[in-house]
């Protein structure tokens, strides 16, 4: 057990390190001189030279790499080329909509998909099962921007039930801001519920075929108890894993959804950064998101251990 934890933790450190390396290499591969880009077309060669020196760009690549890793370890992800600010503060300023959007859509997806997935597995092959599977497949096939745009036009613009876009004004209150997230969250939640539903159903099907479920029935308990007490707890493990994996899907989805609904979140930030070639911001977003992902997966693995007492290596 301790052995497993140590190995798991070591693995995480290495993965984090690799994430940093990939992010560093990627940006280094970009054509053009970062200093020249930062200063714009009017800069003199002398200006560029000076900036290169102050940014450490004249150092050997290996030294630059070490500095980069050391800085990143202290939370310093460099400065934005576009905003006159550090990447960390730029990211922090845009985090709120993305965090809540992801959270709401995950909750939406879990609330919708888990019970249906469980019931569909239990009533395998029934009309409900078939329609649930088909709907899930459909939901996973429609690009979220299409759903978003259709919602926007009909539910927001025409019916006026929801705000069509934006995040409220600059001085909008918290509730107002959250209200702007409802439609985006549903849009993003639909895609995720498709994945979670299919996964829940599959894990539940596996577990319902297990011998210990047969034992539970032989003990003379109600079907309700068989499913809710004996099967669900075991199905919880794979479901937790998939929730961890959904994180990547949420972030990717958030990028598109924020664009559809004009939300000033990390997704919009990174898209604009790409259009403006603001490499430090792209790099910073990549790093933050990837490390978050690594952490969430560590967390789900630990949760796993708490639920399942079997020693794992």
């Amino acid at each position, binding site marked *: 057990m301790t052995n497993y934890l140590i190995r798991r933790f070591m*693995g995480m450190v*290495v*993965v984090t390190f*690799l*994430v940093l390396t*990939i992010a560093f290499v*990627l*940006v280094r*591969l*970009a*054509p053009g001189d970062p200093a020249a880009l930062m200063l714009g077309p009017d800069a003199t060669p002398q200006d560029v030279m000076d900036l290169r020196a102050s940014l450490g760009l004249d150092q050997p690549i290996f030294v630059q790499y070490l500095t980069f890793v050391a800085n990143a370890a202290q939370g310093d992800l460099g400065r934005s080329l576009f905003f006159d600010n550090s990447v960390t503060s730029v990211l922090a300023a845009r985090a709120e909509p993305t965090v809540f959007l992801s959270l709401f859509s995950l909750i939406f997806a879990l609330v919708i998909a888990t019970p249906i997935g469980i019931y569909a597995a239990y009533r395998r092959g029934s009309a409900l099962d078939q329609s649930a599977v*088909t709907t899930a*497949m*459909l939901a*996973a*096939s*429609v*690009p*979220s*921007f*299409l759903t978003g*745009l*259709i919602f*926007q*036009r009909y539910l927001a*613009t025409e019916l006026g039930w929801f705000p069509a876009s934006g995040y409220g004004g600059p001085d909008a209150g918290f509730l107002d801001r959250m209200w702007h997230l409802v439609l985006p969250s549903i849009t993003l939640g639909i895609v995720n519920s498709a994945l979670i539903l299919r996964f829940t159903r599959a894990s539940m099907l596996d577990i319902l075929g297990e011998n210990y479920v047969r034992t539970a029935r032989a003990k003379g308990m109600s079907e309700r108890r068989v499913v809710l007490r004996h099967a669900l707890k075991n199905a919880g493990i794979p479901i937790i894993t998939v929730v961890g994996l959904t994180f*990547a*899907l949420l*972030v*990717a989805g958030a*990028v*598109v959804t924020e*664009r559809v609904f004009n939300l000033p979140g990390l997704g919009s930030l*990174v*898209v604009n*950064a*790409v*259009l403006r*070639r603001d*490499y430090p911001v*792209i*790099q910073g*977003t*990549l790093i933050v*998101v*990837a*490390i978050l*992902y*690594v952490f969430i997966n560590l967390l789900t693995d630990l949760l796993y251990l708490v639920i399942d007492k079997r020693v794992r290596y």
Partner: protein
Amino acid sequence: MADTTLSSGTPETAEPEGTGEPGFFRVLLARRSVQVSLVVFLTIAILCLFASLVAPANPDAMSVRERLQGPSAAHWFGTDAFGRDVLSRLLYAGRSSLSIGLSVAILSSLIGVAIGLTAGFFSRLDWPFSRLIDAMMAFPDILMALSLVAIFGGTLTNVVIALSIVYAPRVARIVRASTMVIREMPYVEAARALGTRTWRIMITHALRNIVSPILVQATFIFAYAMLAEAGLSFLGIGVDPETPTWGIMVNEGRQYLDSAIYLILFPGVAISLSVLTLQIVGDALRDALDPHLAKEA
């Protein structure tokens, strides 16, 4: 001949008893939904492939007089803001979208198989390879593709390469897992006991057994890559707008969301329909290929 008939060699049954194991295609095509999906997908694919023959108009011919006209007899799917025929553009754009999906599916499978097979078979390489796969998978697909395209530029080739880099680790992970299972199978031990070399074991035993999971995965990647490319193009970061894709058409039509929703609806439905049918076929493939694996391996 007589002496080959051993006292104990009584054949158990004259015929082997594999009774009515339904064939691959019968299982694949058992469901109506799968038949319909195959027909729909192939129709879309063929129409797009022969766009130059079937398209009613030149997809780039502009006509200011005919701008933003809804579906009509002359223009079945209407015209866009430059008066171009939407149906014709849709067919040409489909060619790009589908070929991106297919190329990504093939390329990422090749990379993934190479990595996964190596990691799965050589236990010494497993740890570093697996950590690299983990690190690659920590970047969400669109975000990674976005960055790659931002850095190398938005050409069709770059989008394909970027998406292949994104999906290859997913294939690698599946291949690695299956290879590890197969590596421990008694028939691999039997091969080793016979004196078969490792590379031959990898080809005859490992590769042959992972072909079906890869095929299934490739079908899904085909679908996901089309979705991801559409997402990139919708964000305005995908392929150069000179060669339209369905995603680009949605992006272009977005300004006219309130007045001409058909501009996003047709390409949007085209994407959804292709992705949906691909996924249904992928699922059916899995069912058709899996019973053997599930039962035998």
